[in-house]
């Protein structure tokens, strides 16, 4: 019996999971196996794993600078050194800051930025979108017009304006991105819930007399959440890309070990032939975004095959 329901779950990913928890876990395991069958996803996951290790073991990889580890230690006797010089594997910038140190401690900031922003916007957007879809009518109309207003300004530009008003600091970049990114989730979950609400199992739950909160929690949300998972994965990369752009422009503290700020610090040297600072720091951003894009695409192919490759 369990194997039969397990198979059914596998062929229709949106099937309600009212039955035993074992089926749920069997299905999850199967999705996991399917995701890992794509070599590009595995590459993405490996890069993410390496970045996680880098962030966790940053103090072991590069001795933290006192008092603030997110400011590179300055080696004034080795300014603008090319890669390979003793003690500076990836070279130094124009103020003697070690590039490798910046990349290692920058991974912590990228992790902090992406996890904070994605978690907050995912939860907040889901709440707003769910209220709109479950309540409908005037509330839906009002909430969706607010969403329209937010969507009418491109993300980076909106975040730029907010961060500019709050003043140059990395924490303000986090705030600005959190204020902008929730809209997408609200819109996605609203559309999904409206679709799911028409399903027979929701009607059945209503007939049985379940409370609307229970219907939402047990039947609607679990079946509407798949596209959110994909979007959240992609946004783990997007958030770092936009955050890096803001700090490149100059909206983070001076000398911060943030990758975008590092690229900016290397900009003047770049035209003098000192290519290493900007190149390596930018490469870290690309790898981070690439990894989450690969995993996000892989997840989408498995969870949401209708939009494969889009």
């Amino acid at each position: 019996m369990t194997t039969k329901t397990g198979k059914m779950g596998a062929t229709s990913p949106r099937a309600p999971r009212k039955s035993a928890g074992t089926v749920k876990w069997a299905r999850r395991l199967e999705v996991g196996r399917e995701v890992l069958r794509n070599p590009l996803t595995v590459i993405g996951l490996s890069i993410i794993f390496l970045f996680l290790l880098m962030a966790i073991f940053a103090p072991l990889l590069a001795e933290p600078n006192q008092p603030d580890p997110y400011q590179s230690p300055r080696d004034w006797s080795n300014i603008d050194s090319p890669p390979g010089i003793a003690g500076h594997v990836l070279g130094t910038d124009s103020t003697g800051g070690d590039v490798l140190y910046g990349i290692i401690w920058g991974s912590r900031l990228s992790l902090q930025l992406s996890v904070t922003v994605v978690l907050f916007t995912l939860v907040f957007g889901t709440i707003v979108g769910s209220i709109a879809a479950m309540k409908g009518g005037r509330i839906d109309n009002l909430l969706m017009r607010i969403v329209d207003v937010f969507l009418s300004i491109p993300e980076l530009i909106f975040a730029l304006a907010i961060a500019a008003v709050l003043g140059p600091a990395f924490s303000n970049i986090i705030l600005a991105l959190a204020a902008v990114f929730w809209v997408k989730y609200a819109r996605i979950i609203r559309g999904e819930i409206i679709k799911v609400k028409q399903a027979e199992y929701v009607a059945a739950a209503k007939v049985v007399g379940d409370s609307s909160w229970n219907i939402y929690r047990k039947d609607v949300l679990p079946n509407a959440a798949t596209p959110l998972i994909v979007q959240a994965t992609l946004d783990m990369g997007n958030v770092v890309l936009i955050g890096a752009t803001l700090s490149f422009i100059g909206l983070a503290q001076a000398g911060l070990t943030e990758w975008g700020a590092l690229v900016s610090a290397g900009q003047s040297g770049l035209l003098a032939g000192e290519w290493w600072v900007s190149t390596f720091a930018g490469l870290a951003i690309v790898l981070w975004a690439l990894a989450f894009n690969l995993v996000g695409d892989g997840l989408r192919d498995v969870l949401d095959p209708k939009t494969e490759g889009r």
Partner: protein
Amino acid sequence: MQVRDYLLRRLALLPVIMLGVSVIVFTLTRFTGSPVGIYATPNMTPEEIAALEARYLLDQPIPLQYAAWIGGLFRGDLGWSGVSVAPVTEVIGLKFAATLELAIAAGLIAVLAGVALGTVAGVRRNKAPDHGARMFSILGASTPTFWFGLLLLVPFYLWLDWFPLGRSTPEIFSSIAHPTGMYTLDALIALSPGAFLDAIRHLILPAVVLAFGAMAIIVRMMRSSMVEAMSEEYVDAARAKGLPNKVVIRRHARRNALLPTTTVIGLSFGFLLQGAVAVELIFRWPGLGQWVTSAVLSGDQATIMAYVLITALIFMTVNLAVDVAYAYLDRRVVLGE
């Protein structure tokens, strides 16, 4: 819903959304308190500063200030741009023309190259060109525009000196009139091949950099709609008629695959507006993006507000135009769903 009704409803909603944008932008800039700093000079007495605040209604309640700002907007007064040392309305047209020229050039590159690459990838599915195109589009989505710009600057500006920074060579700039503010167009109007070449030489590199991210979206969409189109019955029918492969792909499959691709053009235009901020900064392109970055770094609120408003207006107009174009191209579309 009828296309005309839908268009009218969207047009009616546009001012409502713009009003929302204006409220958000205004509230946001008042978070940090009075913007009087940009108008005051260090040797002013407190009385003089108070007089200045009274003159710009900065001592009034916030809703009144907002009303005054909106009133000014309708009279064509967007305030004083501290970074340009001129009224906002006086400079915004020039900045807009510069960014528009860059965005149109980048958009053209992105659409032409993106459609071509996506077509090849879709036709030769799961072969080398397809893998290449997928890798290209995922790299385009993962590469920060500012970094890509810096990377291209080194070989093409520093080593080869093929493309100069800025928008034009000063002597050439002053040799012709600039009625549109778009230098390539101005050169064509003045019938000056020299000025045209100069404008193009300045335009190419920033436009290519800007096009990269938008192109990634278009390649992706074109590829998947091409894959879909190639499996349709009308393609089989065209083949059965004995038409050559090239004709089947160009006239039958590609023409139909272009339809869904138009829907992402609006989206990719948002990428162009966003990317222009970093690209203009790096290539010293005096457009809206460069204008707003200097405003951001010096706390020039009037400029930031005007910039966000005009960007939202452009973005919404382009998206509306794309929707309408799509509806006219594909009569099966039911809008407003």
